[in-house]
């Protein structure tokens, strides 16, 4: 199935312009990172304000492998995933002992401190200007093949693989254990679930997703610099997860679409209305903020939750709408509960 999807994306990427291809790639990067975070926060009930740090690890690993060892990019991606898995496990072991604001604080610290390492070792990491890598489309596609299309293909493929794996993980025993831990860790422990191990596992999964996203970002923007992984990026990831609908993989897509596409459009709008620069320059930021507030007011469970409710209302609460609705949910409790009461997805 994923192959068919990939083929559709390929056709789209050929039909669309090159900048749209680049945006598809950007969205795929975002989806990869947000999907990992939404699993961590929505399913296992932990929070991370520092996932951009894992992206940085993936990005720099990829850049260093590509520059110094000339590795093919797919191997670099695999190693980047492995490196962030190790980092995620280390952080996860510490994080499994923390909860709520303490966990948020610890991950925030990670997000602030880790990218700063690039400044401390400028010889290795290139300091503020980061590392430049060269990424080219493979020769068999021909010399005139647009690089951005290849970048869109690679990132979409990785994003789809990640989504397939996460969807499977979600329905497996591991996913059920996460939800049990999230809802009541004492009850989960009494049921024989190793709470700490489940939490560490969730952290590793989320870190690997972020690491892959960072690696993809390196090959699409052809550089890795500390400015790409600031604390604002971590917050943007969390924003996308919440806006899309916590714990929901389609929600990760909605959220990514919002945070990648909306700022571009409001910039175009602001610049085309002849406002004075001090006002016009800040309109995109203000508009983005207003949009986030509106989405949370209209759809308190995120866009995915809102869509589910709308479709439920449209088809009536008792029809078997979910069998034909194009927006499947990933939380099994929804099979028993009416969609509109499906509010248990929170970090609490």
């Amino acid at each position, binding site marked *: *199935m*994923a192959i068919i*999807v990939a083929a*559709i*994306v390929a056709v*789209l990427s050929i039909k*669309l*312009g*090159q*900048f*749209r291809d*680049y*945006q*598809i790639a*950007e*969205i795929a990067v975002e989806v990869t990172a947000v999907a990992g975070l939404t699993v961590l926060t929505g399913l296992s009930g932990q929070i991370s304000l520092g996932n951009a740090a894992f992206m940085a690890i993936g990005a720099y690993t990829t850049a260093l492998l590509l520059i110094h060892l000339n590795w093919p990019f797919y191997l670099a991606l695999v190693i980047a995933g492995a490196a962030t898995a190790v980092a995620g496990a280390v952080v996860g072991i510490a994080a499994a002992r923390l909860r709520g604001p303490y966990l948020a604080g610890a991950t925030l610290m990670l997000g602030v401190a880790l990218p*700063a390492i690039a*400044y401390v070792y400028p010889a290795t990491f290139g*300091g*503020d*200007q*980061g590392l*430049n890598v*060269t990424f080219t489309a493979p020769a068999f596609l021909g010399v005139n093949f647009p*690089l*951005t299309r290849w970048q869109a293909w690679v990132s979409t493929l990785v994003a*789809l693989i990640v*989504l*397939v794996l996460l*969807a499977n993980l979600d*329905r497996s025993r591991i996913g059920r254990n996460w939800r049990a831990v999230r809802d009541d860790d004492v009850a989960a422990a009494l049921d024989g679930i190793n709470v700490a191990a489940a939490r560490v596992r969730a952290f590793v999964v989320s870190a690997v997703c972020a690491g892959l996203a960072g690696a993809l*970002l390196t090959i699409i*923007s*052809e*550089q890795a*610099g500390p*400015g*790409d992984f*600031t604390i604002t990026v971590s917050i943007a990831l969390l924003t996308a997860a919440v806006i899309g609908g916590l714990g929901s993989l*389609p929600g990760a*897509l909605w959220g990514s*679409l919002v945070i990648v*596409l909306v700022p*571009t*459009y409001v*910039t*175009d709008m602001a*610049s085309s209305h002849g406002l*004075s*620069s*001090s006002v016009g*320059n*800040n309109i*995109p*930021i203000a508009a983005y903020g207003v949009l986030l507030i509106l989405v949370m007011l209209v759809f308190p469970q995120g866009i995915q939750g809102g869509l589910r409710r709308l479709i439920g209302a449209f088809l009536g609460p008792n029809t078997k709408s979910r*069998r034909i*609705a*194009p*927006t*499947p949910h990933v939380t099994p409790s929804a099979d028993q509960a009416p969609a509109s009461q499906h509010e248990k997805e929170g970090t609490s």
Partner: protein
Amino acid sequence: MKKSQRLRWQAMAILAVAVLGAAACSSSSSSSGSSASSSSAALTASAPGITPTTITIGSHQPLTGPAAPGYSEIAPASNAYFQYVNAHGGVYGRKIVYKYLNDAYDPTTTASVVRQLVLQDNIYALFNGLGTPTHLAAVSFLNSEKVPDVFVASGCDCWNQPTTYPETFGWQLDYISEGKILGQYVAQHFKGKKVAFFYQDDEFGMDGVKGLDYEIPSSMVVSKQSYVDTNVNIAPQVAALRASGAQVVVSFSIPAFTALLKLDSLKLGFNPTLVVSDVGSDPITLSGLLESFAKQGGATVNGNQLTNGMITDEYLPALSTSDSWYVLFKKIHDQYDAKEPLDGNFFYGMSVAYTFVQAMLNAGRNPTRTDLLTAIEHGLPQGPMVAPFAYSSTNHLGVTGAYIGVVQNGVVTQQGSVLTTTTSPTSPITTYTGSEEQAPASGIPSP
């Protein structure tokens, strides 16, 4: 169960793709130039971004974020000059369309907006992309797409790599030469005093320090402190400068950090002579920043008083009513951009736009992209600059010299002659004997 799960996943994946497509399709709002009108038949669409009636160029600028104060005025100033040219016949009848996008001084955003300009808006050239770390995220892409990357708003000597980056040209004085000129002044005028450096921790600051080190004996230098532009807490660095006993602090900083340096020094009762590189020393911008930062901290200061005595260097003429360029640019300012302050940043934006129009005129009636590069490599008249440009096929740096200035009551006053030099550690600093060009009466350069 297994099968229904797979169905769900299929539905979700198809939907995902559909949305990607829909989102992408719905937004192809690229604004291409208007169709050919009744103007001269000889004008053709000779290159991407050039139509018989328009030349579309683009830029990435920090309209918000840490570098915005001061620098956000540059692109509107350039645009005001282009509007003036458009209203007075354009470039061989073509109007310049200048599309500048906000990158908030964030390299990831730069990479994205530059791709938007090149791949979607189909610009002829990238003009005056601002910032060293930001433009570094775009320079290899622009060169691989063969888009002229002219007059980068940064003095990093990294733009001067004609073999690696044939499309890229600097414009302003490079930071190494600037460091040498400031360094020589410090070494001559502050003999026996303790000197410290404060600099931005990237190519900009490090190039500047390189130039300073060529001229200032290391025995005079007591401390070197750096900052990163994402962290406004520079109290530890300022404390270290104070502890070093420095009597002169040379600063390679953007305006916001020059202001923070001054205010944090005041708090500690530390009052060294400040020597600030051109990019961080515009007195009008600084005065505004000093007053607004102090207000945030609950204090009131007089910005102009605080910048008094600051030493800097300047490669554009002083803002004085006796200067022909000032008169010209003020006229355009009042007509097209009166909302923005008439300060050094405005002057910068006007001057670089003037140089661009000069280069376009030299490139010919129906220029290809290569024609523009060739025109610049054949050398350009210095226009408003106080020293000549260095452009040639082996040198892509911009202006070659500057004069030392001292700030008094919000105005930079020239001290001594214009000095020229190069980036080489051994090349001498010489007095420039040529005279400044006068602004053309039409306000538009001649080819």
